[in-house]
Structure formats: C-alpha cells, structure tokens
C-alpha cells in the first residue's frame, strides 16, 4: 500500500494540470497570434495578456505550495544523471513560468503601451518607456517561449518514459494514481 507521501498533495496536482493546460495554450496562442492578420489576431492578443498574468499569479501560489509541501522522493534506483535532469528541468520550468509573463509585462511597459488586461483593466508600467529596452525584451519573450516549449517537450517525454517504460510511480504521483507495487 502506498503511503500518501508517494504522491504530490492535491493542491500541487491541481495547479500542475491547470497550469499545464494554460501554459501550453499560451504557447500556441503566442505563436498563432503573431502569424495572423485576421480578427483572430486581435482576440488572441486580448486572451494572451490576462491569461499570461493569471499564470504569473498561479506560479507564485504554486511555488509557495511547492516550498511547503516538498514533492515525493524520486525512486531510489533512478540513475544520477536522470535525477539531476529532473531537478534542473523542474526549476527551469518554474523560472520560465515566472519569467515569461514578467518579460511580457515589462516589454509592453517599455514599448510605452498601456498594459490592458481587458477593455478597462490596466496594469501599471513596470519599466519606463524605452524603445531599445522594448526590442530586447520582445526578442527575449520569443526566445524564452521557445526554451519553455523545448523544456516542456522534454518534460512530456520524461513523464511518458516514467509511465510507460520504468513504470516507477513517478507519473502516477502527479496523475493521482497509487503506484502498483
């Protein structure tokens, strides 16, 4: 019988799957909107900004949950390299889910745009208007998004590897299945 500590706590699991859907959606919305000139462009941009700020808020909450409730330990027989890869990629994912929305907010501030999350809700600028800073941040936003996407793909592949090949309960600890022993 698995002990409760073999799984992530339920708030962590809920945040994980909710944010997975939101972040993946954001990655598609982002590249889709810059490749469109139709009315889709306008409405995707209007979804992109509030959804991105929601991710920022949830990421802060999630980090707090993570620090209070450490995740279940990795299987003892996991090779050192894989352990290290898991550790590094998880912290990279946390860093990116905080950095991307912050860079998005900062770049619109630097571009001198009002940061509108709806027709009436405006966030304050977090940087003074500066065209050069805008350009750097706008490119950074795109490159960090590519890095997030690649890291996510590796994460997805690793999760499938745990679930299909190693069958070591790591996937189950996030899905909510009790590992078979």
């Amino acid at each position, binding site marked *: 019988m698995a002990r409760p500590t073999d799984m992530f706590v339920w708030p962590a699991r809920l945040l994980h799957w909710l944010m997975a859907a939101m972040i993946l959606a954001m990655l598609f919305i982002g*590249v889709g909107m810059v490749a469109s000139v139709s009315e889709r462009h306008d409405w995707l941009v209007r979804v992109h900004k509030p959804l991105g700020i929601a991710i920022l808020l949830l990421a802060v909450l999630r980090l707090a949950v993570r620090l209070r409730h450490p995740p279940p330990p990795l299987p003892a027989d996991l090779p050192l390299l894989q352990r290290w890869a898991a550790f590094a990629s998880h912290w990279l994912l946390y860093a990116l889910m905080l950095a991307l929305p912050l860079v998005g907010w900062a770049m619109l501030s630097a571009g001198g*745009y009002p940061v509108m999350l709806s027709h009436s809700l405006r966030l304050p600028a977090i940087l003074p208007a500066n065209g050069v800073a*805008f350009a750097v941040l706008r490119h950074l936003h795109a490159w960090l998004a590519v890095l997030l996407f690649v890291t996510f793909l590796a994460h997805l592949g690793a999760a499938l590897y745990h679930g299909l090949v190693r069958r070591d309960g790591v996937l189950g600890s996030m899905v909510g299945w009790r590992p078979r022993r």
Partner: protein
Amino acid sequence: MGSNWSGSLHRMMRRAGGWWRYGVIAGVPLAVAAAWAYTAGWLAPGRLTAPRIIDQIQVNSGSVYPGYRRAHAKGVCVIGHFVGSGALQPYSTAQVFMQGDIPVVGRFAIAGGNPYAPDGSVPVRSMALRLTQPNGQQWRTGMNSMPVNAVATPQAFFEQLQAQQPDPATGKPDPARLAAFFAAHPETAPFRAWAKMARPSASFATNSYWSLNAFELVDAQGAKHAVRWRMVPESAAEDAKGQGDNYLAADLVQRLAAGPLRWHLRVTFAEPGDPTADATKAWPADRREIDAGMLELTGTTPQDSGACRDINYDPLVLPDGIQASDDPLLPARSAAYAASYLRRTSEEAHLPGTAAGKKETR
C-alpha cells in the same frame, strides 16, 4: 504447431509492444512540436502574416531604412492637447470625450516607406495621435488625408503591394500588372477617383484626416454605436504648391511659431446598413455628426529625437468606451504596425541580424 505459432506471435507482440512504448515517448512530443510549428506558420509559407506584409513593403521601398517606420516613414513629431466638448459622452464612456484637457503626442507624415522621399511625391498625408487619459488608458489613432481607402481587406492590400512592386528595369511599377490589379479590384474605384484629383498639400495644417476604418463607441449602458471620424482643420485651405522637397516640416515650424494649430474631431454615426467592414465605401453625406472636441497642436520636433519616435500608433490601442468594429483592416494594421515597430526598435538597439548600422542623419 499451432501452439508454437501463437507462442512466437505472443513473444513478437511483447517485443513490439516494448518498442511501441518508445514510439509514444518520441511520437507524442514530436506531434506537439509539429502542431506548434503549424500554428506558427512554419509549415504554411503561403499564409498572410505581418512579417510578409512588411517584407513586401520593404521591397517596394527599394531599401531598408534602419530605425524608420516601414510605412509613412517621413514625418515629424508634434505635441499638444485635446479639449473634449463633452458632446460625445452620451455615446461613449471614454475619458477623452469628457470636457477636459488630454495631453497628445502626435506625428504628421507622408505615405510611403522612404524617409527621404520628396514631400510632393505623394498626395497622402497622415496624422497619428496618442491621447493619454487621466486613468492611464490611451487612445491611439492613425488617420489619412483621404476619405476612402483603396482596399477593404488585408489580402487585397497585400496584392496591391505586390502589384506596385517596382520593376527592376524601370524602377517603376509595371503598368500592366497595376492595371490588372485594379481591374480585379473594382472596390478601388472611389480611391482612384480621389487620387486623380488630389494635389499634395503645401502644409499638414490644411488637410482633413480620416479614420477610414469604423469603430464602436460604447456608452454607459453598454450599447454600441458604429462610427468613423475625421479631423477637420481650422486653417483655411490653400492652393499653394510646396517648393523643394522638404517643405512640410518647415511649414509646420513656421506656423507653430505664430500660434497653435487646431482641428475639430468630427464623429460620424452609421445608420443601419452602412458598411463598417469596408473602408473603400464612404457613408452617405447626411449622416449625423458630432463635434467631439478640439485638437490643439503647439509644438513640433524632428522625428529622430522627438517623443513620437518610439510610439507605435497601433489603431487598436483603445480606451474603455471605444472598441474595434468588424473592419478586417484593423487587426491587420495592428499586427503590421507591431512588426514594423519591432524591426525599427531592434535597429535602434543595433541588435544582431537587423539592418541597423548607420544612425539616421536628419
């Protein structure tokens, strides 16, 4: 025999089953990556995107002028303020329309992608404005000095650019190609009739400037009112012809030295059936108009150092109380202006891979 056969099949399936798992581990991320690439347009090079529009504009301009706007490249910055009349308040909750004083950073320009083009080379002049409300929301609008646009859709706009591409042999657009475009696009007729009569003005101050695209005002009850607008000058029309190539900026300096320049924002309301999604068609002349307030410009600075340089006059930067209509040009303008803005600010930043280098001289 039979049991032997089924036994080896079972073993094969077991082994194949093992490989199948690796297939999933590689295949699922690959499929997601392919879907992402498709969404980004990498697998669909024929799709009309903002970078493609800007690339075509650059080809038509004959060169990339680092740091300059890709369209309406030649212009000057202006500052001033907008004094709302309050008359539009029943139709829109936007603070710009209340009685009061709204700071403005604007820009006059001539159409075209060459920042060194002679002022008389095109009849189209433009006025772009950024109005900043007390609540921090902004209204940005870019208006042109003609009452109708040549085309109604981004696709037609792109085809027009292609038809206007200079022939390397003559340096001019191929007349046959242009004629074929106009024949295929009868909606360009009102614009062409205007262009035939239009003379390049000797002053930015004497032009009217039209929004062309329709927008929606939203009132306190949430009801929407389709409108277009234009800026009507107080300065009297003139028959004068500009002398030289750069008379517009000089004229503006001279006039502003003598006092502020004023326009009235006249907002036209659509009647049911008036097209909001077709900027090639003017609305009937008898439509109700409201004077929403007065624009007063007080100063001008060169665009290379002025406050308008790093502003993207994206027509979809709108305050609460003004919204986009269903005009398909609006999202295309928003996307194209963003692409132009990213290129010119990247050049300002001298980022690798940009056409940066020489700093503008004027």
